[in-house]
């Protein structure tokens, strides 16, 4: 089987090269060559999928002749985790990269099969270049061949680290990778647009969805990682500014900036250099993330084997950066803005500000992450920066970002008059003032001015968003009648991008509120308690009622039952525990091996909308380990058959000696040993209950932290709404040509302006001027189309843009 996989991988490698070359040969619009290269990309996707299927079959069937299976799985590994074990390996994760890339590339080429004739060949070449790189890496770099085989195959594998056996760890890596990899598509199309100098917004329109999908995947991956850290690692945090976390956050932040600034290019033909540079930055950051995890250049919680692929990926990053920069510089003339910013009080200038803030955040994080290298360069000493340094910079930037997230949607494109600004800002400002006052008077929020600022800005932004929905729905209701709910649903479903985006904003703000509250107003206490003792944390009385213990073949679980009381009333119980795993392959044998493997925490969590009670236990193992050692010594003495040993021991000792000579007795001996040891382990464990030694509990009260997860999910839902294809598209009325896409975009702009006018954001005069201008531009597009001879005849009036009234 491994050789079949190797063959498919080699075939995939050559297919990628072939697809790239044929695409470039077809750059002059040779329909046949483009079709061949597109089909070759589909074939590449199928071949890599085949590789993944072969590896997964090997994992599922415990085929330890695959060295990747032997090293990352075992017979005992639970079935679900066997399938996820692929990406806990270096070679498997590279294969995952290639696989996601192959799917993204195939999807992108399918979506653009009838358009962008000029850009597509180059985009194909870029995507297949990256694909060639990653498949080549697996084929030729030492030590990362996913189909390396072991002969003879071992009886059992090493197993998957118990820490990684957590549902969110199954999906967290593929989410992050999908995010990283999907950014290849907009990058490839940007390069294509630069090469062919087709620098209007076409490449953006064609790949916007991919950027949004990548952004959503990356964001969800980050959220899952944070959640795992919070519930599974016994330190009580969700973010540590660890290099690997930062490596995933940076492309996400830049991607956020990109998603906003491309709107400015679409609507106003501005920021072209900026957008091209941003997507190059995003893609380089995604590669950097892939590199960091495999290089060992930075110290991190995540330990990395000094792997061999780091330098290659670094080389690719270098090629991408140098090549793209040269390309952008050589195209500066073509990248000039079509228009200028009319006024600072306009949506596009707020977009610019939020872009600068996001890039500023990325720069700060990049500097902090790579500071050990920077410092070594200048002072000769490796020095690192801790979380407080990161907080100092990211906190004010994030707070400003919330402010501008609030301002942006309230402003119209181009310019805003004083009168309309007063109208739309009145209520959000008033609500923010009331909320701030309320927080200062009623809570301790003023203890942390940063947090207070964030809460007031959030109140402002959330009210602004609510007002957007409300006035939009009202405007729609006036035009088309019906109930408010129906108007709201219609509003969102007819303007998915806009209102989906607003929902994302609301989600991110809620998430930031959760972060601000839980990091500024957290109560954290480490206490040692004996059963029966209690402690009071933040008005809650917490009593260590009793210890618990459970033993099975693979682990000892030591836990605690804690009673939580508020105002002398029992409100619930929390059950933290800690599991001590035996190293794989030692299911039978000495009791003390239970303490030789991994230990994992199972956090006791009482989540609530107002605050979470989080408790992790660290039991005192001194007595237990002593008992285990004594039991092991007793067992050894017993089977050696010294004087005074019970007769069962003598029998077992005799059986073991016989088994050493006769392999057929081995199974029987093993079974007896494990039965006996199981009983002993249970006895030892019961001893723990009788001793009832003290345990150290870390107790954390995290206010509003639940909103972090809720906010993340709201943002994800918003992204899905923004991604959902509109009704026309679903029916198969695909946008066939670039001219169609341009027309559609212009109509959408007209519709937006109408909505802004109806919602009171645009004054009557401003709207009249804007509407006239947009309609003139729409006509120009149609005229150009007619001039090209593929229009719909002379003298025909342009199709009216779909109005709000039509539903």
């Amino acid at each position: 089987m491994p050789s079949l996989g190797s063959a498919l991988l080699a075939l995939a490698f050559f297919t990628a090269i072939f697809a790239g070359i044929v695409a470039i040969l077809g750059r002059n619009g040779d329909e046949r060559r483009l079709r061949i290269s597109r089909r070759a990309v589909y074939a590449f996707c199928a071949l890599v999928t085949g590789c993944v299927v072969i590896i997964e079959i090997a994992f599922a069937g415990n085929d330890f002749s695959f060295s990747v299976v032997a090293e990352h799985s075992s017979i005992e590994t639970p079935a679900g985790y066997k399938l996820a074990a692929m990406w806990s390996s270096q070679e498997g994760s590279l294969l995952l990269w290639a696989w996601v890339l192959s799917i993204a590339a195939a999807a992108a080429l399918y979506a653009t099969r009838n358009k962008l004739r000029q850009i597509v060949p180059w985009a194909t070449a870029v995507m297949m270049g990256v694909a060639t790189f990653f498949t080549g890496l697996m084929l030729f770099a030492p030590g990362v061949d996913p189909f390396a085989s072991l002969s003879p195959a071992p009886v059992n594998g090493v197993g998957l680290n118990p820490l990684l056996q957590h549902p969110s760890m199954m999906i967290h890596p593929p989410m992050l990778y999908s995010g990283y990899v999907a950014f290849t598509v907009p990058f490839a199309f940007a390069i294509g647009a630069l090469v062919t100098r087709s620098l209007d917004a076409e490449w953006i329109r064609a790949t916007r969805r991919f950027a949004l999908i990548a952004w959503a995947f990356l964001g969800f991956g980050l959220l899952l990682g944070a959640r795992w850290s919070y519930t599974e690692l016994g330190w009580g945090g969700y973010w540590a500014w660890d290099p690997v976390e930062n490596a995933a956050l940076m492309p996400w932040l830049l991607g956020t900036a990109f998603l906003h600034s491309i709107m400015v290019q679409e609507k106003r033909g501005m920021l072209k250099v900026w957008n091209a540079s941003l997507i190059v930055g995003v893609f380089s950051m995604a590669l950097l993330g892939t590199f960091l995890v495999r290089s060992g250049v930075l110290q991190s919680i995540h330990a990395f084997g000094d792997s061999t692929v780091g330098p290659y990926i670094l080389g690719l990053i270098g090629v991408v950066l140098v090549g793209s920069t040269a390309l952008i510089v050589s195209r500066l003339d073509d990248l000039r803005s079509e228009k200028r910013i009319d006024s600072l009080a306009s949506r596009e200038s707020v977009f610019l500000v939020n872009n600068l803030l996001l890039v500023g955040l990325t720069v700060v994080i990049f500097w902090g992450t790579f500071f050990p290298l920077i410092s070594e360069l200048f002072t000769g000493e490796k020095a690192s920066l801790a979380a407080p340094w990161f907080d100092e910079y990211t906190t004010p930037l994030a707070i400003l970002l919330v402010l501008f997230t609030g301002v942006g949607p309230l402003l119209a494109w181009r310019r805003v008059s004083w009168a309309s600004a007063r109208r739309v800002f009145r209520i959000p400002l008033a609500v923010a003032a009331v909320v701030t006052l309320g927080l200062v008077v009623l809570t301790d929020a003023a203890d942390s001015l940063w947090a207070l600022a964030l809460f007031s800005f959030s109140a402002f932004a959330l009210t602004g968003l609510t007002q957007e929905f409300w006035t939009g729905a009202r405007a729609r209701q006036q035009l088309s009648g019906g109930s408010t709910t129906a108007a709201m649903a219609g509003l969102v479903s007819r303007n998915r991008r806009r209102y989906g985006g607003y929902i994302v904003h609301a989600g991110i703000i809620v998430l930031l509120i959760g972060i601000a509250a839980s990091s500024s107003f957290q109560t954290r206490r480490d206490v040692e308690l004996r059963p029966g003792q209690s402690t009071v944390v933040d008005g809650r009385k917490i009593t260590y009622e009793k210890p618990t213990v459970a033993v099975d073949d693979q682990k000892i679980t030591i836990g605690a039952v804690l009673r939580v009381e508020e105002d002398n009333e029992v409100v619930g119980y929390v059950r933290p525990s800690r599991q001590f795993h035996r190293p794989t392959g030692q299911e039978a044998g000495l009791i003390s091996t239970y303490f030789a493997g991994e230990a994992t925490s199972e956090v006791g969590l009482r989540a609530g909308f107002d605050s979470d009670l989080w408790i992790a236990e660290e039991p005192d193992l001194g007595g237990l380990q002593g008992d285990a050692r004594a039991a092991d010594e007793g067992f050894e003495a017993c089977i050696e058959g010294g004087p005074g040993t019970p007769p069962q021991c003598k029998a077992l000792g005799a059986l073991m000696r016989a088994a050493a000579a006769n392999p057929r007795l081995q199974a029987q001996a093993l079974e007896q040993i494990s039965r006996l040891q199981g009983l002993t382990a249970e006895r030892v464990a019961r001893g723990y209950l009788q001793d009832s030694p003290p345990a150290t509990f870390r107790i954390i009260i995290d206010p509003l932290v639940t909103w972090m997860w809720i906010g993340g999910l709201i943002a994800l839902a918003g992204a899905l709404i923004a991604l959902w294809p509109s009704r026309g598209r679903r029916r198969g009325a695909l946008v066939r040509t670039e001219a169609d896409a341009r027309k559609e975009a212009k109509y959408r702009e007209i519709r937006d302006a109408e909505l802004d006018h109806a919602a009171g954001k645009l004054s009557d005069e401003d709207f009249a001027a804007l509407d006239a201008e947009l309609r003139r531009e729409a006509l120009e597009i149609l005229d150009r189309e007619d001039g090209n001879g593929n229009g719909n005849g002379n003298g025909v009036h342009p199709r009216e843009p779909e109005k709000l009234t039509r539903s």
Partner: protein
Amino acid sequence: MPVDPQRKRKIRLVVALSTAVLLAVALIYTSFSASTEAKEPSQLIGATPGTSYEMTGRVVKGSIRRDGEEGMTFRVVDRDGGSKSLPVSYDGTVPDPFRGGREIILTGSVQSGTFVGEPDTLITKCPSKFTTKSDA
């Protein structure tokens, strides 16, 4: 008062650039003053007492002693092995993966020959991720 648009753009540019420069200077200045030097155990033997360092090393198997109230002590060697080991004392939360043979990062200072870790700064690296050899 109408301002010449050309001039206005120039002012904006100057303001934006100076903000960026200020931020960059602050970033550079604070990062060098706030950072902790990273050292390996062999470099810390005989280091200046009292100076704070970030120590990265490998825990010597079988050297971990937990003495109840006092936290715990263990010895560390350089990541790539080496014969010189440094005694460490630490009192604070111990991450799940901590054990002999693992790589750790700990912030603290040297006091009379022993590296005393600051509470809750012990980081143990997640094992198994992308390691080519297993240590189990």
